[in-house]
């Protein structure tokens, strides 16, 4: 009896060893596209379209007009950029926001990581403490600003505690202290959000690494720098990027806390100047020019952060 084994039919690869497969028009997972479509539409409408339109506005003599109004909007080249950056107030606002970022971003990263690590180890009152740090983030700035005005005015509690060490004029009306005060306020207010990001990242750091470090004789500080810090590096990059982007968009605090970017423009931010130029004074073209430069500067900073803090991730 002989048996014949018939090899299973194997589809032969096409010549050249590579198989040509037609990609479905909507990709491998068309349902995924459907789910992401609303956000994509949102991004296009709310971010991409205005951004592209802002660039267009910045090269034209433009103002907002009623529908149907006969308006000439000639191309003006770099004129809006020259007008905007010939204004010392605009240049100063970029310097101001630079000071803000230099204080706010490192402070945010360090404090939120330290507090998240501490909160991660807390067993009692964990929920209470997490909510406590998150509440300022949820509270409207308008409400919190009034409290800070009380705290930091000439007769406020901060100056009473400091006594003769209190600056004169007081914090928010002092040219040297206005921007650092705002940076401190924003750091405190936003901290809860970044703590949450770090808390999420900390859950992904394997416990075994801490145990190994402990076995090798590492103490708490050594574990923090050798396990925690590298373990949450992707989160750190995210915190750096988000805090830089939100910081560069600084508006509400100089508008409310220092009464419109005072004193003497020491706390005016580029977005505040854009608001004054574009919405109050009817020059959206120069405001757009400032905005475009701000986007480029922020992208540059973000690239540097990603390059130096992102590692190979």
């Amino acid at each position: 009896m002989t048996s014949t084994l018939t090899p299973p039919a194997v589809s032969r690869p096409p010549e050249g060893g590579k198989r040509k497969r037609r990609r479905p028009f909507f990709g491998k997972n068309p349902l995924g596209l459907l789910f992401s479509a609303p956000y994509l539409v949102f991004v296009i409408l709310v971010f991409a379209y205005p951004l592209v339109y802002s660039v267009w506005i910045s090269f034209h003599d433009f103002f907002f007009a009623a529908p149907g109004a006969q308006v000439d909007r000639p191309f003006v080249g770099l004129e809006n950029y020259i007008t905007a950056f010939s204004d010392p107030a605009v240049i100063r606002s970029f310097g101001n926001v630079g000071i803000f970022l230099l204080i706010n971003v490192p402070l945010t990263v360090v404090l939120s990581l330290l507090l998240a690590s501490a909160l991660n180890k807390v067993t009692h009152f964990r929920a209470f403490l997490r909510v406590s740090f998150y509440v300022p983030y949820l509270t409207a700035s308008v409400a919190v600003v009034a409290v800070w005005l009380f705290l930091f005015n000439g007769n406020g509690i901060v100056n009473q505690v400091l006594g003769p060490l209190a600056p004169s004029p007081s914090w928010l009306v002092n040219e040297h202290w206005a921007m650092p005060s705002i940076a401190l306020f924003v750091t405190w207010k936003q901290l809860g959000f970044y703590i949450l990001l770090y808390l999420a990242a900390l859950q992904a750091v394997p416990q075994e690494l801490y145990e190994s470090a402990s076995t090798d004789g590492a103490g708490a500080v050594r574990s923090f720098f050798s396990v925690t810090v590298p373990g949450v590096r992707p989160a750190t990059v995210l915190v750096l990027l988000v805090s830089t982007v939100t910081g560069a968009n600084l508006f509400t605090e100089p508008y409310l806390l220092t009464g419109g970017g005072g004193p003497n423009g020491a706390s005016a931010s580029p977005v505040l100047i854009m608001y004054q130029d574009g919405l109050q004074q009817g020059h959206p073209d120069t405001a757009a020019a400032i905005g475009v430069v701000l986007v480029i500067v922020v992208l540059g900073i973000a690239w540097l952060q990603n390059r130096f803090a992102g590692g190979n991730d």
Partner: protein
Amino acid sequence: MQRRTVIGASVLLTAALALSACSGGATTSSTAKHGPITIWYSNNEQEVAWGKQMVSAWNATHPKEQVKGQEIPAGKSSEEVIGAAIAAGNAPCLIYNTAPAAVGQFEKQGGLVDLSKISGGAAYIEARSGKVADQYKNAAGDYFQMPWKSNPVVIFYNKDMFTKAGLDPENPKLSTYADFIDTSKKLVAAGVSKVAIQPAPTSEFFQTQFDFYPLYAAATNGKQIVQDNKSTFANQAGYDVADFWQTMYKDKLSSPEQYTGDSFAAGNSAMAIVGPWAVSVYKDVNWGSVPVPTKNGTPANKTWTFSDAKNIGLYSACKAQGTAWDVLKFSTSKAQDQKLLELTGQMPLRKDLQTTYASYFEKNPTYKAFGDQASRTVEVPPGPNTVEMLQAFRDAWTKTVVTGSGDVKSALNAAASKIDTIAKQK
């Protein structure tokens, strides 16, 4: 938070841009068309009460031209909300909260109807407001706003605090700069209040209207800070006003720090620089009022001040402009102006105000001084660059006067030069 601000602004901007970019032909609605309309009025309690009664009085007799009254939507300021509504093409027919400082921009945007082009429009405005109406014309002499009401700025003082400080509360010495400073020093030295007077020391463009401008108007017998596209304030009168306020800040009689809340109501200051709207706000304060000071003192019946007016705009997006014009006339009639006086205490921009409503002023003597003052008020300069000019002035003011950096003469000269350039922009 800032991210939310930017997202919110982006949504507004996108909507405005999309609508302005995609819109087709011009609004062709004429002033002859009639039908239902929507109006916006201010959101303070008194003006809401006035707005509601005016709308129901109109609606009761015009079933086919019903008016829908709404409070102006919330925003950072009414002007920004109106500007966005113009760009989006959804402004209501009438807005009873149109700031004269913003009218030039709204006109440039194509958002306002030229009331002078309406048959009998200019004549109606001038018959109601008299010579005061001239300040509300644009450079071409046309009315893109209906002068409506003013809040002549005066000095309020707390009589009880004056008494405690040993000052005469019925005849306070506040008419000259020297007297004002001397009285302020006595008030602070007596410890009755932390500061004598607390105008907002902040950098918003409109704050100029409540420190420099009233005193400058008084010092110059009613000169605008910009006339014929040229600044007028870099002169001795302007320097004197700036010197006066700089002394107030330097001597700690006013504070460069913004006060959270109402400084006068809270007893932080013994005086305030306000309009008649304040009468209903300061019910719990035993107050008196005097005109703003001048260098050598000016009799009350000859003192000028800033108007702090709010006017009515008829917006080009309106489909039934005939009805809108009729409602505008109805709401500025003698009867409705009386209601405005009674419900808000604000002064209709009407000639012969005191004689027209003699019985009202007889019954409400506290408003008499405001009624008299209303005939001598100065408005912000007209044109599309008003806000930019006021901001340039404010920047120089906060730097030199509020924080005391540099001398006022150089600061005002530099601001004047900058404003002259701005004024020439189209």
